[in-house]
C-alpha cells in the first residue's frame, strides 16, 4: 500500500476520495432500501381488536407535520382552527368541561390558543405563562399572573418541616412543565384548593406576604412558591386522554427507561401540530419525545377509538393530499430510523431498535413497553 500511496499526488487523492464516497453512497442506498422495510414490519400490537396497516416511521410524519405547520399557507392560513381532527370535529366550538363550580375558565376554543401539550395559552384574554426558557419570564414582584403546567403529586420525601404550611416549598403537589416530575418543578401553595393530577392553569402570585413567616433559610424558597389564587382551567376534551392517562403512561415508561425525560415534539410553546387539513393523520396533542436513543416517540390519544382511527388510516406509502385552499401536504410513513411501534389501548410508543434487529436491551425494552401498555 505504501508504494501505491506514495503517488497520491494532487489529482490522485481527490479521485480516491470520490471513489470511496461512491462506495459509501452505494452502501447508504442499500441501508435505506432495507431499513424502511424492516421498520414497516417491526410492529407490535397490544390489546384486542386492533387492526390496521403497518405504521413505520411515524416520527417522520410528526417531523413532516412540524414542518408543514410552518409552510406558507399551512400554519398561517388564517382559517379558524377546528380542534383535533381525531374524534371531536366540532369540539373547537364547544364549551370546555367545568369540573368544579369554583373554577371559572373562559371557554377555550380549538387549538389556536393552546400550547403544544394542549394547555391553553390564553385564558380570559390573559396570557398563560409556562415554565419554559422561551416563554415570558414570570413576574418577579407580587403581581398576579396565569401559569400553566402539569400538576403532579410527587412521591419523593421532602422535608421543610419548619416552613409555614401556607407556603411550604416542599408541599405536594408541584407544577411541572411536563407530565412527569422534573427536578425543576415549581412549588405551589394551593391552600384549601384540592385538585387532581393533570394539566392546569392557575392564577398565582409570588412574594406572598406570608413568606415572612418562614424561617430565614427557607424564606427565599417561600417567596418563590406560587401562591394559588384561583384555578382557571383543568383538563378538557383536547388534553384529556384515556383509558391510560398521559401522566400514567409517562410514569410507566419512566420506570422502564433509565434517564427518561420528556419534551414535546417541536418547541413546547408552539401551538399543537393538529390542524384542519385533509392530510391530518390525527396525531394527538399529547405527543412527546425523549432525549437519548431508547424511545423516539410517545403518542397518547384521547381514546382508543382515536388511536385506532389513526392506526387504520395510515398506509405503507404515506399520505399526500391537497387542502381545500390548494396547498399540498404530505406525510411519509417510513423513515430512515428503525423503530418498533408498540401499541396498547390509547397509546403508541416508538421504541428505537437498530437496523440489525436490535440489541438484547432494545428487544427487552420492546417487551417491557408492550407489557406496560397492555394494562389499563
Amino acid at each position, binding site marked *: *500500500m*505504501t508504494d501505491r*500511496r*506514495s503517488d*497520491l499526488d*494532487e489529482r490522485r*487523492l*481527490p479521485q*480516491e*476520495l*470520490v*471513489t*470511496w*464516497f*461512491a*462506495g*459509501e*453512497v*452505494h*452502501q*447508504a*442506498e442499500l*441501508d*435505506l432500501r432495507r431499513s424502511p422495510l424492516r421498520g414497516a414490519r417491526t410492529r407490535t400490537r397490544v390489546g384486542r381488536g386492533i387492526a390496521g396497516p403497518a405504521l413505520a416511521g411515524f*416520527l*417522520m410524519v410528526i*417531523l*413532516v407535520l*412540524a*414542518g*408543514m405547520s*410552518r*409552510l*406558507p399557507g399551512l400554519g398561517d392560513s388564517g382559517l379558524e382552527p377546528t380542534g383535533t381532527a381525531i374524534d371531536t370535529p366540532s369540539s373547537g366550538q364547544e364549551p370546555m368541561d367545568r369540573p368544579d363550580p369554583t373554577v371559572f375558565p373562559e371557554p377555550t376554543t380549538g387549538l389556536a390558543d393552546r400550547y403544544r401539550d394542549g394547555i391553553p395559552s390564553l385564558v380570559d384574554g390573559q396570557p398563560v405563562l409556562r415554565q419554559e426558557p422561551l416563554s415570558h419570564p414570570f413576574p418577579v414582584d407580587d403581581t398576579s399572573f396565569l401559569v400553566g403546567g402539569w400538576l403532579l403529586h410527587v412521591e419523593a420525601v421532602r422535608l421543610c418541616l419548619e416552613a409555614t404550611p401556607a407556603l411550604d416549598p416542599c408541599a405536594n403537589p408541584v407544577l411541572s412543565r411536563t407530565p412527569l416530575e422534573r427536578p425543576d418543578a415549581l412549588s405551589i401553595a394551593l391552600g384549601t384548593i384540592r385538585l387532581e393530577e393533570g394539566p392546569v392553569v392557575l392564577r398565582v402570585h409570588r412574594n406572598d406576604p406570608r413568606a415572612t413567616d418562614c424561617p430565614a433559610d427557607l424564606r427565599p424558597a417561600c417567596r418563590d412558591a406560587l401562591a394559588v389564587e384561583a384555578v382557571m382551567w383543568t383538563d378538557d376534551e383536547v388534553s384529556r386522554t384515556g383509558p391510560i392517562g398521559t401522566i400514567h403512561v409517562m410514569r410507566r415508561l419512566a420506570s422502564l427507561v433509565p434517564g427518561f425525560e420528556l419534551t414535546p415534539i417541536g418547541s413546547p410553546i408552539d401551538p399543537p401540530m393538529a390542524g384542519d387539513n385533509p392530510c391530518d393523520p390525527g396525531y394527538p396533542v399529547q405527543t412527546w419525545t425523549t*432525549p*437519548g*436513543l431508547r424511545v423516539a416517540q410517545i403518542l397518547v390519544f384521547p381514546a382508543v377509538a382515536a388511536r385506532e382511527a389513526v392506526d387504520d388510516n395510515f398506509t405503507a406509502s*404515506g399520505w*399526500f393530499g391537497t387542502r381545500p385552499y390548494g*396547498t*399540498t*401536504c*404530505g406525510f*411519509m410513513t417510513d*423513515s*430512515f*430510523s428503525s423503530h418498533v411501534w408498540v401499541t396498547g389501548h390509547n397509546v403508541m410508543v416508538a421504541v428505537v431498535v437498530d437496523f440489525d434487529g436490535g440489541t438484547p436491551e432494545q428487544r427487552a425494552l420492546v417487551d417491557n413497553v408492550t407489557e406496560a401498555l397492555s394494562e389499563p
Partner: protein
Amino acid sequence: MDAVALGAAFEGEAPVLLAAARAITLDPVEAEDLVQTTFELALRNVHQLRDPGSLRSWLLTIQAREAFRVMRRLRRGLRLRGGVVEVPVAGIAPAESLAIRDALRGLPPRMRAAIVLHHMAGLTVPQVARALDRSENTIRSQLRVGLQRLREALDDD
C-alpha cells in the same frame, strides 16, 4: 418546489446525504438522525428553495449546518458515542476503505466536513463556505491542509 415534490426528490438524495452525514459525523446512528433532521428542516424551509436543480447542494448545506449544531451539543456531553463500522465499499478494498475513514477521523471536524462536501459530494468552494459558515479563503485553506493531512495519514499506512 412544494412539500410533496420535495418528499419525492428527497428519496433520491437520501443516499448521498446519509453517506455525507456518516463521513462527517463518523457515527452511523448520529448520521441517520442528521438525515432525518435535514428532511424536517428542508420541509420547513422548502419555500426558500428557488432552484430545484440545486436541491442537493441546498440539502447538504442544511445538513452540514445541522451537523455542527449537533456536534456542539455532543461536546456539551449529552451523549458521545464513537466506533467505526466496517462498510464494504465498491471499488476499494475494505482495508483501504477503513484507512480513508481513519484518515478522515484524524481531521478536525470542520476540515473533514469541507473535504467531504467539496471533494466527495461535489459542492463548490462558495457553497461549502456558505454551508460551514466560513469564508471562501478559509475553506480553500482547509481543503489544502486537509488533503495534505489525509495524504500523510494514508502514506503512513
